[in-house]
Structures are given as C-alpha cells and as structure tokens.
C-alpha cells in the first residue's frame, strides 16, 4: 500500500469499507444496514454507507455516538440519566432482526474519561440495549461485524506518537487490505481456517498439551465442543465474519480438567493497565496462583470477582502465519491482540462451540479475558484418550497436513 497521497488513502478506506460490507457483515441485498460508530469515525461510516448501497442495501442507517456527550452526562447529568436507554433506541435495536450491523472500534481519546468518577463511568451504560443485542446473538438474527478505525489517539497508544499512517499500514496489513483483491484473500483465508477447525474436529483429541519456557499445561477437551473458525452463520444460513482481523480457531475446553503451569508470551491490556510476564498455576481446572512482572493484582482482582472466573473458557490456536503476530505490535485493542498468537481465556466459555445445549464442562462466569501464550518456543500436542501425542504446533508452524 502506497503511503503518500490522499488518493491512496481514500482508496484504502474504500477497500476497507468494502471488506466490512462484503466479508464482515456480508450484507444481503434488500437488508437495512445499521452503522454505529463514534462521530470521529464519520469518514469510515460514509465509506461503509456507499459500499453498503453498492452491495444492494435497501437503506443505510448511520447512528453516531459521541463520547464527549456521554462525558457531559457523567459529569453534569442527574443519576437517572446514567443508565437511561431512550425508547426510540430500543425500537431501533429491535429492528436489527434480519438485518446487518457494522460497528467500529479504535478509540481516538482513550483517556477521555480518566478524570471522572469511576463509579459513574461504570454505571453509564445502556444495559437495556445490551440485552436486546444479546437476544439477537442467541437467535442468530443479525449478520454483524466490527472493524477498527485508526486514529491519532490510538496510534499514540501503540507507538508513543501520533503516527497515524504507520498505524494505518499495520491495520491494512493485518486485515489483508494490501492484497490485490482483499475480498478474495479473505475467502481463501477463512477457508483455510475452517479446514483447520474441521481437521481438529476429525481428530477429536481428548486434551491439548502445552510445553515451553515456564509452561507445562494439559487442558481437557469436550466431546461435544467443536473447533470453530470465526466464520459465523445467521439462523437463515448467511455466513459472516464478526471480527476483522481474525486468525484463530477456537473451542471451549472442559473447565474441570486443566493441570500445570502456563506463562504468557505477550503483554495483556487489562482494565486500563498492562499485565506483563503473567504466570498461572492451575490445579483441578482452577487457577490457584497468579504471578506477573507487572499487574498481577489486576488479574487477581478479576479472578476474585466471581467464583467461576478462575476456570478456562476458551482455547485458541494461532500460528506464525498470523499477520497480527507478524507485526510484533501490541495494539491495545483485543480485536487485534488476541489474533497475534495462541491464547487462552479464563472466564466464560463460548456457547457457539456446541451443537446443542452446552453441558457442565462449559464454564459460566461474568468475565472472559484472553491472554496470549503462543510463540516459536511453545509446542502444542493433541492427546488421545490413551495419551498418544500428535504434534499440532512446532516453532509457530502448523503441523497437521493442510
């Protein structure tokens, strides 16, 4: 991707919007496309609106949020305003059913709320809207996607200086915008991830064994939990990709069966701070010890918040072909960071992994925190019930035939 001219940048943005519409939400002609972004992301919203109409959207509804207006409410508004969800927004969220939603991440002012009363900031959420969204997720009635839109504020977080162009180039690389035909590149990419997931499902291992510096961990798998790539389908069968980028295949492990130690391989952005050098000890599925070079308290407080928090909810495999991993950057945005390398999450499991009702093996908690464990020094084997080991990852390379 050329770095110089406005034309290049405009074209890159148009391609990015195209990706959101054709691959991410994969909108169906005749759908209403809801675009929800902060007002600073207007250039992206506009490009998405154009791309959505070009793809046959019946109507594109753009709703801009404004963090500064939210701040005014938290600072000067009455208590009753904090959790208030206007009726018209509930109606609108209800209208998502059968339609498409495109949202963006990438906070241009990550520290905007930092001088406010944390308790009021925490309360200022439209919970009733989250409930409606969750119902759409369960009913699978919505094809949706989220993409990050670069800004100077975000670039400063990543690089220590507002190098917007450098961030754009990193994002473009991670999201395959640098390919001659990004949409085709994504189709190929998703096919590869899905075939990896199918392979692991075929092999139906009983457990995974992680081995590396500071790591010797065995995690049990569940008979009824499948491996998935992040290619979702609506109830009516429309495929979509909720996260761009995505590099992982993932499953929900047996939360009752995990033993050993695991060392994190990358910094973890958590609750506005960073956890470095995280090391966990696990017994009978439960995290019993937390150590870190920095920020151990953040993890301990999170684990203390819920009886079921210290159990694993997700295993995700990412190899060295991950473009996010190849950048070597910490993006301070989960959408990117969790796709850099293999990760494990403590907290709630993922219901989509199960064909039917999840059984007792799936953890239920109110947190879900992914931490990165992968890298060239990590070896991962699949174990049969009789203990026979099959190499899955060595030196960041996928070992099963592709």
């Amino acid at each position: 991707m050329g770095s110089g001219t406005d034309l290049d940048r405009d074209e890159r943005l148009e391609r990015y919007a195209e990706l959101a519409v054709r691959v991410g939400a994969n909108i169906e002609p005749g759908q209403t496309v809801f675009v929800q972004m902060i007002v600073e992301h207007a250039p992206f919203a506009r490009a998405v609106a154009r791309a959505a109409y070009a793809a046959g959207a019946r109507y594109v509804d753009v709703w801009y949020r404004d963090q500064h207006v939210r701040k005014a409410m938290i600072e000067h508004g009455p208590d009753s305003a904090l959790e208030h969800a206007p009726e018209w927004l509930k109606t609108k969220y209800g209208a998502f059913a059968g339609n498409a939603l495109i949202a963006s991440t990438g906070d241009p002012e990550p520290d905007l709320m930092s001088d406010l009363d944390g308790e009021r900031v925490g309360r200022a959420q439209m919970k009733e809207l989250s409930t409606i969204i969750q119902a759409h997720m369960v009913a699978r009635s919505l094809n949706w996607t989220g993409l990050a839109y670069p800004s100077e504020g975000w670039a400063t977080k990543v690089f220590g200086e507002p190098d917007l162009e450098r961030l754009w180039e990193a994002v473009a690389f991670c999201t395959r915008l640098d390919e001659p035909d990004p949409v085709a590149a994504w189709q190929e990419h998703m096919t590869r991830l899905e075939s990896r997931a199918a392979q692991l499902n075929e092999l139906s291992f009983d457990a995974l064994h992680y081995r590396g510096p500071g790591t010797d961990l065995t995690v049990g798998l569940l008979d009824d939990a499948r491996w998935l790539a992040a290619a979702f389908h609506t109830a009516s069968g429309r495929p979509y990709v909720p996260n761009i980028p995505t590099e992982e295949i993932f499953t929900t492990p047996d939360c009752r069966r995990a033993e050993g130690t695991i060392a994190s391989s990358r910094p973890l952005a958590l609750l506005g701070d960073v956890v470095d050098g995280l090391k966990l000890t696990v017994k009978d599925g439960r995290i019993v010890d937390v150590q870190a070079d920095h920020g151990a308290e953040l993890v301990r407080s999170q684990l203390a918040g819920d009886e079921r928090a210290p159990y694993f909810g997700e295993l995700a495999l990412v190899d060295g072909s991950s473009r996010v991993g190849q950048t070597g950057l910490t993006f301070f945005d989960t959408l990117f960071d969790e796709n850099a390398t293999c990760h494990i999450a403590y907290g709630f499991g993922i219901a989509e992994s199960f064909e039917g009702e999840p059984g007792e093996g799936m953890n239920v908690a109110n947190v879900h925190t992914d931490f990165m464990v992968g890298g060239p020094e990590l070896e991962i084997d699949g174990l049969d019930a009789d203990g026979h080991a099959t190499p899955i990852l060595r030196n960041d390379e996928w070992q099963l035939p592709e």
Partner: protein
Amino acid sequence: MTLDPRVERYAELAVRVGANVQPGQLVEVLAHVEHAAVARAVARSAYRAGAGYVDVLYRDQHIRRALIEHGSDDVLSWSPPWLLERAKQIGDENAAIVALTGDAEPELLSDLPGERVGKARMLDLLAENNRQINEQLNNWTVVGVPNAGWAKQMFGEPDLERLWKAVEFCVRLDEPDPVAAWRAHVGRIGRRATSLNDLQLDAIRFHGPGTDLTVGLLEESRWQGVESKTAQGLTYVANMPTEEVFTTPNAARTEGHVRSTRPLALVGQIVRDLEVRFEAGRIVDVQASEGAEVVRGELKSDPRAAFLGEVSLVDGTSRIGQTGLTFFETLFDENATCHVAYGSAYTEAVEGGASVEGVNDSTVHTDFMIGGPEVNVDGVRRDGSVIPLLRDDVWQLGD
C-alpha cells in the same frame, strides 16, 4: 480537556435564551457531524441547566448523498419508524430542542439530479415535526455553527475566524451581556409587532425591480417577533439570530410576481435569481438562473407546498443586513431582509391557530428573501388606505 470559551458562551446562549431549557426536561440536539464541538458544549450547558437527559442526534449529508445516489425510489422519502418514535417522544414529553445549522459542504449535492434531491426528505417525520410546531409543544431554537466549509462558501476561502466574528455580531455574543442585549432586542421587535397588529392590515404589498406582489392576510393574522411561547406558556427564541416581525398570510390570497434578492441555499444546492409567479395563492411558475429544479421538486412534495405560509418584514437595522454578507444559510439570510416562505404556516401567528381557514399546512417551509433598499413595502388596511412600512430599508412606523 480545554474548552473554547467562545463555543461555551454560544452554547449557553442557545440553551438559556434560545431554547430556555427547564430543569428535568428532555433536551434534543440536532446537529451535523461537523457541528460536534458545539453540540458537545450544548450538551454540557443543558445538563448544567438541569436537563433530565440530552439526546444528540447527528445527521450526515454524505450519508444522505449516498441515499440519493444509490437508494431505490421507495426509500428516498421513507421515515425509519425509530426516528418517528423519537419525534413523537419529543412531542409527548414537551422536550426542549436545540437544532444546529451551518452546512459544511453547501454544494455537496449540487451534481445530483435536483428532483431526487428534492424528494429525499423524510415526509412522515416532517409532518410529525410540523404537528408539534403547530401545537406549540416544544421550546426550541435554531443556531448556526461556524465551520470551514461554510466560511469558504461565504468568503471564497475557509476563513473560519472571520465567520465566527460575523456570527458573534449577528447573535449579539459580542455584547458584554448577551442575555441583557437579547432582552432589549425582544422588546424593540415586540413593539413593531404591536404597532402592525394595531393597524389591522388586510394585505402587504412589495414593489421593486421584478417584484409586484400582494400578500393577503387573514383577519386572524397576528404579527410576532423574536419571542415565542409554547402552549404551556414557556417563552423561547426560535431562531438565533432573528430580526423579523412575521405573520401567517391567507394562503389563498397571494397574487403577482416576485424576484428573490439574495441567493437561497436549499437542500445542498444554491438557488440563484429565483423568480416566482402566484395565481390565487398558488405558485404557478418557477424560474431561476440556477437550482430551479430543487424548488420545483420541493413544491411537488405535497398539494399545499406551493402556497405561502409566512410573510416577514426586516429593516436595515438588522445586524445580519449590516454585515453586508450573504451567509448562504436561511437562518441568517432571511434575517437580512424581508422574506416570504412557501409551505407550512406558523399557527402561533394566527388567532385561533390551525383551524382557521387559509392557514397553510405542508411538509415544507422554505423562506426566500425578497427585500432590500429598492423594494418598497406597504401595508394595505381593510378600508383600502395604504401605509408605508419600509422605504429604502428604513422602518416607517417608528420604534
């Protein structure tokens, strides 16, 4: 976070004098994305004035452009049900409304077919808004937000500072005590309204180059200026700036022809040298050197769009007129000089309100400027006697 004191002062004026926000009120802010700095300041001011909740809705002309370019005919004038619900709630809860104008890209839609541009209006939503204005449910105000695009349109270069200075002058933000200055202004224009009402005029006549127009009034027509009142008696200033005394004419009694004296910015296009001919109240011919199609498209919106809903008198003391500038923004330009509007009437300016026959009702309301030093304005009394109202832009009735 550093705040711009000028923006904060402006927002305070809009909230305290304009909308006159009351404690506990729902406050609706309508803004374009380019107005975010002022919209945020209005939200802060409104909460400080005790607002119960502030709901900011951003509009984006680029999204509208995408709709006009690519949307099918059946969605062009569609009102999404959630926006209708929002509008109804604004009426039901007697919300305060602060609307921001000031087009950042005034020519954004100029290369699109005028007819589609004219049609791309949320008709049901506009009808709901009109109902609320007619029933005087809300205390509301409209203020202009300076931006680079608007400045470029006016000055040929994006001289934002110059535009801010002009806007500050027009809305009296240059006064040491803008609130007191507005109080004095309310009194002066209010006295003009009183003297016009005392004359019991039957018609207003405009005479000048390209213009010979008679606008018939209703017996129930009442002249108004600057300050408005909700049905519940709450005062507010609907437009900032405002310099006009206006009333609602008898929609059936406009005759003659009129030449617009200033360019008109209309739904993303500029209409220049507009000439309109009336017969029995209805606009029967529209000509313009530029943008005639947009006007014609608007007039087709509904059966009553082509009738007058407002006649308004402004003299040379107008601060907007004094700037000598064309703002390409109706909020300002209509206050530079006399104007009429086709489309809906303000029922507030009629004794008896909407039920009076001859009060026009439409989904459009477009003001166009017809006054200036060369245009003489007379009042015709019911006995046929003629009273000069404006000569050479000077108010003839005394202040």
